[in-house]
């Protein structure tokens, strides 16, 4: 992620983040990208999420 991408994302989110904190957040952005990559391992197209709702029988 570049600084411009971060600034654009923060503008979209409506967050008024001080400049120094933006630098630290940018430096940590790869941690998020690593985590997001880890949960995207190949899986069957129909693999369900954990919180699929099961309504109790009436």
């Amino acid at each position, binding site marked *: 992620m570049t600084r411009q991408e971060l600034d654009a994302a923060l503008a979209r*989110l409506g*967050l*008024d983040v001080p400049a120094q904190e933006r630098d630290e957040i940018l430096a*940590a952005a790869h941690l*998020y990208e690593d*985590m*997001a990559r*880890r949960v995207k391992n190949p899986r069957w197209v129909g693999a369900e999420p*954990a*919180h699929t709702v099961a309504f109790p029988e009436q």
Partner: protein
Amino acid sequence: MVADHLTIVEAARLIKRKELSPVELADSRLARIETLDGQLHSFIRVLPDEARRGARACEAEIMAGRYRGPLHGIPIGLKDIYETAGIPTTGHSKVMQDHVPAVDAFTVTRLKDAGAVIMGKLATHEFAFGGPSFDLPWPPARNPWDTTRFTGGSSSGTGAAVAAGLVLGGTGSDTGGSIRGPAAYCGLAGIKPTYGLVSRAGILPLAFSLDHAGPLCWTAEDCAIMLQAMAGHDPADPASADRPVPNFRRALTGEVKGLRIGLVRHFYTTDNEANAETRDAIDAAARQFAEMGAAVREITLSPLAEWASCGVLIMMAEAYAIHEANLRTRFTDFGEIFRDRMVLAGLWSAADYVQAVRRRRELIDEFDRAMADLDLVMTAAAPSEAPKIDAVPKFAIMERPSLTMPFNVTGTPAMSVCCGFTAAGLPLSFQIVGKRFADATVLRAADAYERATPWRQRRPAL
């Protein structure tokens, strides 16, 4: 003269025999808070009038022959995310410092009904997530074993107050390890019960699908007593399980013979490498269980980073949704750690969140398969003793995979148990984990281990 340190079991025995007055006990804790909490900062708000009033009522009931049980007259503290009627519940945040709930959380009502005396509201990481922070309206709690050290979080005040003997037990919440972390660093027993066993209603949320409420105490038996009061069905919590609650204390037989325990060693030897003293202490605990007749064998699960990534993504996405409006309008009213972690969560996509929840199902299935021929799993609760309080990185939860998060992902009961001390005298800990709703088995193993080892005899020198 009341002893500086008493377990709930010890105090309850004296109170039941009318050898210790709840008023005397509450006064002794208030005096201890007055003496020690200036250096520990475990309380956000001490409630001396309410505590004395509650203790007097307990005393009157007991003297009239209406003894309620082992929490009757016992001084406890509440993490300041547990709502209390007429008493501010702040989440340790400027954002909610004027929030005064109209009613008690379900669990607070249950604890009061059991006769517990509420001593006050305890420090937490901001909204059970951001800390240790030095830019909030209240300072962070400090570790009674060494006040330059971190308590762990987010149930930081509870960890400090129980370890220091300011209260005999306290409530915590655990979304990624916030009961087990402070229990580990402060040398306590702390149980994150099965998801659904204890109501979350009236507790400020961090992440709906991962939040658990539970107790931190000096011993597993004390945890069993507090959990007994806190557990039970609550229609106000949509995740609350409508099933009978077992008698946890009765399950504490002191025996582990025949229990099958899987040791997840790779979590703390390679995935998040623990220091030598921690590794040795956990390995010794595993040998102790084997000597007591349990069948201990090493097992392998998916790498820790897989579990942690899944849990952290879900936790932060759900937390962002909860705090989104205030982040937009009051960004700098939050502490820097909380708000900057939340910004990262704002960068998640909806698809990232759904992928994490799909991964969660796979990991739950994997854990259930691993448990098919096991009763318990054990592993580390933390990779080391408590670090210095000013040495905790802002993005710590993302830099090293959490050893506790896997069992928030699975929703299974998990407990920190003290298993010794470093050469410098700081507590070490391991984690014991059970099958869903087998909380009694977890408590039974923890209690048996505590009875067989000397670690509960040592208290912080304050």
